[in-house]
């Protein structure tokens, strides 16, 4: 296991390096940040001066090596958009918000999906099943931005129950963005749980368990669900990874200043250090979650060995 993890870490190092390099090259090909930073009223002289100040007049490979060496020393470069603040500082200030929102959305979607998916599977073709599947279809097909705006219009503008936007660590501010963010994942996971459960419920060992006279609850939760959960864990892991990359649309609609918004703004303003640092952090998170998912397999399915 220890060796396995070590190997994965070495792997991860090259994955992250590859991602950072690719992002560095692509962002640098796309345009010059200085004009954007200074605004339209800046003159050519002012632009040239700032470009020199920021070292953007140096060759690309020098900038690249500088970036890598400063990251390796843990001394992240200064943001171009927020001068005087290190890119890491900027990213880490927003990352917790993204994590909070992602966790909330994940929690909501997993709990509800497991409950409804299981009920649906057990009561196949019942009214409940049909209603759940219909809702799941809606959840998957309604565009995120539309759902978000509708929720704001209903619950903030018309009913006045919840704040329309903004970030505060309170349930009231979290509810609407969580629902918006959770809905597509919830729908997908519900369907996945249902189909997984159906497959398992029809298998021989379930028939055996029932034949032994086990109670239905034990059959479903201990025998059936644990086996149906394997594909679920994979999808949840991937979903969570994506959520940690920032839910750009949801963050934008609710002015929830997380990494997603930061990254989009950084791209628009060509804030190279922030783009690279965000991508670095997101890539590291993604790799970490994948690792956790793999380790969870061994618990769910003892046949899986990590060697």
């Amino acid at each position, binding site marked *: 296991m220890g060796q396995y993890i070590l190997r994965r870490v070495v792997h991860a190092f090259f994955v992250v390096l590859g991602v950072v390099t690719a992002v560095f090259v692509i962002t640098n090909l796309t345009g010059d940040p200085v004009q954007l930073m200074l*605004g*339209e009223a800046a003159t050519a002289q002012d632009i040239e001066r700032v470009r020199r100040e920021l070292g953007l007049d140096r060759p690309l490979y020098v900038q690249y090596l500088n970036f890598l060496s400063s990251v390796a020393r843990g001394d992240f470069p200064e943001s171009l958009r*927020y001068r005087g603040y290190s890119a890491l500082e*900027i990213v880490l200030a927003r990352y917790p918000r993204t994590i909070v929102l992602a966790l909330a959305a994940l929690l909501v979607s997993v709990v509800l999906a497991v409950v409804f998916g299981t009920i649906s599977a057990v009561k196949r073709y019942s009214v409940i099943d049909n209603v759940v599947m219909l809702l799941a279809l809606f959840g998957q097909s309604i565009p995120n931005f539309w759902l978000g705006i509708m929720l*704001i219009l209903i619950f903030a503008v018309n009913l006045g129950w919840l704040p329309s936007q903004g970030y505060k660590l309170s349930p009231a501010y979290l509810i609407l963005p969580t629902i918006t963010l959770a809905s597509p994942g919830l729908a997908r996971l519900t369907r996945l749980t249902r189909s997984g459960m159906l497959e398992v419920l029809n298998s021989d060992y379930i028939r055996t368990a029932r034949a032994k006279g086990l109670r239905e609850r034990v059959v479903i939760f201990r025998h059936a669900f644990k086996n149906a959960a394997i594909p679920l864990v994979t999808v949840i892991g991937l979903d969570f990874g994506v959520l940690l990359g920032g839910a750009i649309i949801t963050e934008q609609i609710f002015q929830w200043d997380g990494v997603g918004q930061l990254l989009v703004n950084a791209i*628009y303003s060509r804030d190279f250090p922030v783009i690279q640092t965000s991508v670095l952090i997101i890539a590291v998170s993604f790799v970490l979650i994948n690792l956790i998912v793999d380790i969870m397999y061994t618990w769910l399915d003892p046949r899986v060995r990590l060697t």
Partner: protein
Amino acid sequence: MADPRQDLRTPYGSMSRNLSRRTFLGLAAGAVTSALLAACRREAEQAGPPAPGQTPGPSPTPAAAQTAGPSPAPAEPTPRQEAVRGVEIPKFDNPPPGRPSGSKPEELVIAWGVNQLTTYGIDPQRHVGTVAESQLRHMYEPLVAFDRDLQTIVPALATSWERIDDLTIQFKLRQGVKFHNGEPFNAEAVRYSILRPLSDETPGASRSTYAVIEDVEIIDDYTVNIKTSRPDPALLARLTGFHMTIVAPKWASQGPEVVSREANGTGPYRLVSWSPNEDLVLEANEEYWGDPPEIKRVRLVTITEQATRVSALRAGDVHVATAMPPEEIASINASGRARALRVVGNRVPFYFITIEVPPYNDKRVRQAINYAANVQGVIDAILLGNGYRIATVLPIWAFGYDPTLEPYPHDPEKAKQLLAEAGYPNGIDIKIWYIQGRYPKDKEVAEAMAQEMAKANIRCTPELREAATLTDMQKNKETPGLVFASWGNWFFDADNTFFPLFSCAQAKDYNFDWRRPYCNEEFDKIIQAARVEMDVEKRRQLYAEAQRFFYDDAGALFMYQLVDIYGVNNWVLWEPRNDEMIWAHEMKWNE
């Protein structure tokens, strides 16, 4: 004579433009006669403005005397904008505030769509963003400021001034003013602050605009002489602009990191908290030298998503919201919680034309483009009337604006004829390069104009690009044709449009690439002469000449001034300004 404001009083303000332009011009032509008077007045401002309470020169109207009062007179809009430069600012018939709903808010929340407190944090002297300026001017003040008419310069931290010679203006400073940290405001503070954004250690983003300022001499504790390296007729106006606010010198000399994170000005509000990308929270400065603001606590926020900004206004979560979409005006007014207020704004979108490549090198082609684009039709159809058609690129209140010049009419036949004369009887194929999302309906406007031009055999391919990419392409001369640009002339002087955008000196600075594609030596002679002409009337004539030349040369595709649409909660009493400045100290609670 019909009141030109009448034209704006239609449901969506889709001004019946042909009529309004004519009445407007009628009025303006009448005003030419009064231009002489106005000129005298301007002269009075330039050469030696009033001491507090003293009426300046031959003042054309009683109300004009009022505008030159001793202080910037917060929150008291002049009931009728006087034609100081021969131009009346058109007004919309905005709805009155409705009954406020719910309990009185504890703090005032103002929401913008963009955040400009980025590169230089909350340093008031280095950025060049109007939003940043609007926010930071709550805490910092300049020596002199523009009154709401954007034509009269009024005292702020200076109480009076006098032009001593072509290179020097002497300022008397307000006494007994303290910075938020207790430092005294005096000549030393002025000298430090004016020179700070010109220095190499803390250069302002638009330093070269102010490079003409050579030195600030301290005469005594409350008197300074500001000296320029060449005669600068626009110096006083320049001093109202970006970079020219006054900071507490001892505090600021700790370094740019300190000034970009903390705030110590003399303004009506002081800083409570700010960090990058977070709300800017302010509280009233009870020791303010003027009347302390009535609204005690203010939160300045960014809500980038337009639909969310509208919702937040309608939900009562924000009290003043900028850049409301024209199609939401009715729903805001019907919300019972807020109202939509409109003013003609200072920002001028236009299109550069790459005049060095055929067919754009022929001025008849450029004229044809201006005749064919049907700008007024596009304003009416796409912006629902929320644009103010202008003849060139100068906002109507800019010094030097020539009200007698009429915008290019929509005339596809004339365009075809001009193309034929230029040797293109079958029309031309051109490109229009534009961006999306910076200004209301920028993309739709570009595409509608492209379609309109097709009717005059100008087959125009729309080329949408992301902003930074477009800038890079301009730099590499990859954008032949019409290239989107916009300008907010922040001290309302023709010099601050023509020189930075269309002078050969700037074109040269930009290596003659297509970020500044216009350079014409004949035109350059006129604007260079106007730059140093100290005689106000001669200078005005030079700019009139410049505009006629530029218009005839069709140096750009001329469009309109934006109409700014604000959403304002019924708890707030406020008359929006034309210069994009949104100041809590000009607002009151509706009690």
